[in-house]
């Protein structure tokens, strides 16, 4: 699988496709959008990415306008487009690349014009071309670009029928779906979610100028509920019963059947009663309980609220983690009913599963935050993953976290060891220098400084943090030197000050180097002086 995808994959001849590709990418992770959400400034991101970002900052990554998670709204249409593009990207890319290659080989063949095979090939191309340009034009127009190179040809359209149409259909998806939702009296397949079958059915007539087809049976209830902007998920607790947009099939046209309590379109209810319920059989077309459909559109999928970890103690946090899992299974049912259509076992499998609650508070906090992020992000997806997958992701996170911790610990230890050694070595060196300096000073001035009173702690390798120890030692070692050189004294003082502020470690190191250099010079000077003096007596 080609899992590293990039807009640059598209050949230059198909710039509009490249544009579409880059527009459908999250600016943060550079992947095709997953669960697209829009901020107030109208920039779109993956829900998960922007949630992670907003945990740290409260500005839009694209324009730096102040924002917050509560201002995020799902961008359903964009998410669907991104999903469909994901579905068809690979085969579309193959097709396009193939087309480009063919064009080149065609050009070659045309210039040579000597091979019968090439002629054959060319005529085949021509035939295909007629059928395909239309699709390309439609799709590239969707991308907002006007200059469509008429030379595009997409051969092999037949093979890739499905994919290409997906692509086209989805770009104009919402309008078409709404139209269908309005016209359709009833469904044969029941309110199954937008299925591939129904898409490709209408997709085969996908040129934009074809009249709206009333016939294709699109399940009306589900269209209505899928079209329902569920942007109020949890963010607004109970939105007042807003009037539905007129274009969307109103919810109240579905009624619960008084006998079987399944959701039935109102005009159909009598037929349903007569034909099935009163006859004692089940209506194959409508097998979804009314309650469930109503529930889907209501804001039941509450996002998990963030916690203020600092006010919780370990015990409370542990409890929260355990509750998380329970909530998860609870949500699984509801999420499942929305899209995943209850793989029936989700709820049982995770009924009793909470998140792991071991580890220290730091780990629990991170675990909770991670789960809240991926769970809430999943709520924004129009194709949410089942909770089992979230749990798998959490398992992976758990492993990565453990690895990370051990790696960090090891690195820290190694670093400390290196620092200690370095420090120790440096101190030895300095002590040596100081001794020499003191010696030369005594020779120079004839006064013996009391080195015994300022013992140099260089014989024992340091164990604590370097900055805390080096400061006193450096000042004590340089006491003798002070008598010699005022500059050195100043440098030492500032070095000591720097040492206290551990974060300026590199300046400190630099200054120390400077000090050493000056000392060396000093030493050399005194040495030359000594050598000058020594012959005299």
């Amino acid at each position, binding site marked *: 699988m080609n*899992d*590293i995808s*990039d807009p*640059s994959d598209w050949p230059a001849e198909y710039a509009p496709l490249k544009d579409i590709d880059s527009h459908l990418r999250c*600016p*943060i*992770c*550079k*992947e095709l959008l997953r669960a697209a959400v829009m901020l107030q400034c109208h920039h779109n991101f993956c829900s998960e*990415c922007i949630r*992670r*970002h907003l945990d*740290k900052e409260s*500005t839009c*990554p*694209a324009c*730096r306008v102040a924002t917050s998670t509560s201002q995020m709204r799902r961008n359903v249409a964009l998410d669907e487009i991104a999903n469909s593009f994901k579905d068809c990207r690979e085969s579309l890319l193959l097709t396009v690349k193939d087309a480009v290659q063919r064009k080149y080989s065609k050009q070659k063949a045309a210039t040579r014009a000597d091979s019968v095979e090439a002629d054959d090939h060319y005529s085949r191309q021509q035939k295909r071309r007629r059928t395909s340009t239309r699709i390309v034009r439609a799709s590239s127009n969707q991308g907002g670009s006007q200059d469509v190179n008429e030379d595009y040809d997409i051969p092999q359209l037949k093979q890739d029928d499905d994919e290409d149409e997906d692509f086209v259909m989805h770009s104009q998806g919402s309008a078409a779906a709404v139209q269908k939702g309005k016209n359709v009296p009833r469904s044969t397949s029941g309110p199954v979610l937008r299925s591939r079958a129904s898409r490709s059915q209408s997709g085969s007539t996908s040129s934009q100028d074809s009249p709206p087809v009333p016939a294709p049976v699109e399940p009306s209830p589900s269209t209505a509920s899928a079209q329902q902007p569920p942007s109020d998920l949890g963010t607004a607790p109970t939105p007042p019963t807003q009037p539905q947009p007129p274009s969307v099939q109103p919810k109240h046209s579905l009624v619960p059947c008084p006998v079987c309590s399944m959701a039935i379109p109102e005009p159909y209810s009598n037929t349903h009663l007569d034909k099935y319920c009163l006859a004692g059989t089940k209506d194959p077309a409508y097998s979804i309980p009314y309650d469930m459909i109503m529930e889907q559109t209501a804001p039941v999928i509450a996002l998990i609220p963030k916690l203020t970890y600092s006010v919780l103690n370990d015990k409370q946090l542990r409890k929260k983690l355990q509750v998380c899992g329970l909530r998860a299974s609870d949500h699984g049912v509801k999420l499942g009913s929305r899209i995943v259509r209850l793989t029936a076992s989700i709820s049982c499998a995770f009924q009793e599963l909470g998140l792991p609650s071991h580890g220290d508070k730091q780990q629990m906090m991170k675990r909770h935050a991670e789960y809240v992020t991926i769970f809430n992000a999943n709520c924004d997806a129009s194709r949410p993953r089942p909770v089992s997958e979230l749990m798998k992701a959490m398992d992976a996170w758990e492993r*990565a976290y453990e*690895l*990370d911790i051990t790696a960090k610990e090891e690195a820290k230890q190694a670093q400390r060891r290196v620092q200690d050694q370095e420090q120790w070595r440096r101190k030895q060196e300095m002590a040596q220098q100081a001794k020499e300096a003191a010696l030369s000073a005594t020779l120079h001035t004839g006064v013996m400084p009391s080195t015994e009173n300022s013992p140099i702690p260089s014989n024992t390798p340091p164990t604590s943090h370097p900055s805390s120890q080096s400061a006193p030692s450096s000042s004590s070692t340089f006491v003798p030197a002070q008598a010699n050189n005022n500059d050195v004294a100043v440098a030492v003082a500032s070095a000591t000050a720097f040492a206290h502020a551990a974060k300026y470690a*590199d*300046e400190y190191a*630099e200054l120390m180097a400077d000090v050493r250099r000056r000392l060396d010079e000093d030493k050399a000077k005194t040495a030359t002086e000594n050598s000058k003096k020594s012959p005299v007596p």
Partner: protein
Amino acid sequence: MALPKRIIKETERLMADPAPGISATAHEDNLRYFDVIIAGPTQSPFEGGVFKLELFLPEEYPMSPPKVRFLTKIYHPNIDKLGRICLDILKDKWSPALQIRTVLLSVQALLSSPNPDDPLANDVAQHWKENENAAIQTAQEWTRKYATA
């Protein structure tokens, strides 16, 4: 931690389609560490120079900014003698929508337009403010001395 896809992708793009005057190559043993070479922009005191930088992507990247440092000595009011760069997007103005390429382009732009009002190297900035021509001359000298390959 596995290397995030985004980093792999960026590395590939930097190799396949480098920005003009900028080259960045990842270390083979540490794919988060890049050797960067920026050519001094034309019409700047750094023209003709070839500046080496190092760039490191921390664990939290892209949620936190990359660490960038000049390895070549440079006379610039916003770059100190340790090579550290005073650039807002490398600090508080970082955004995860930025990437290695944009960061390096910003650094290149900083070379074209030194900003002595927001200095990191105070002495250089002072020099720049008091006698810009002389400062530019020094910068050219330094470029000749240290940044010619």
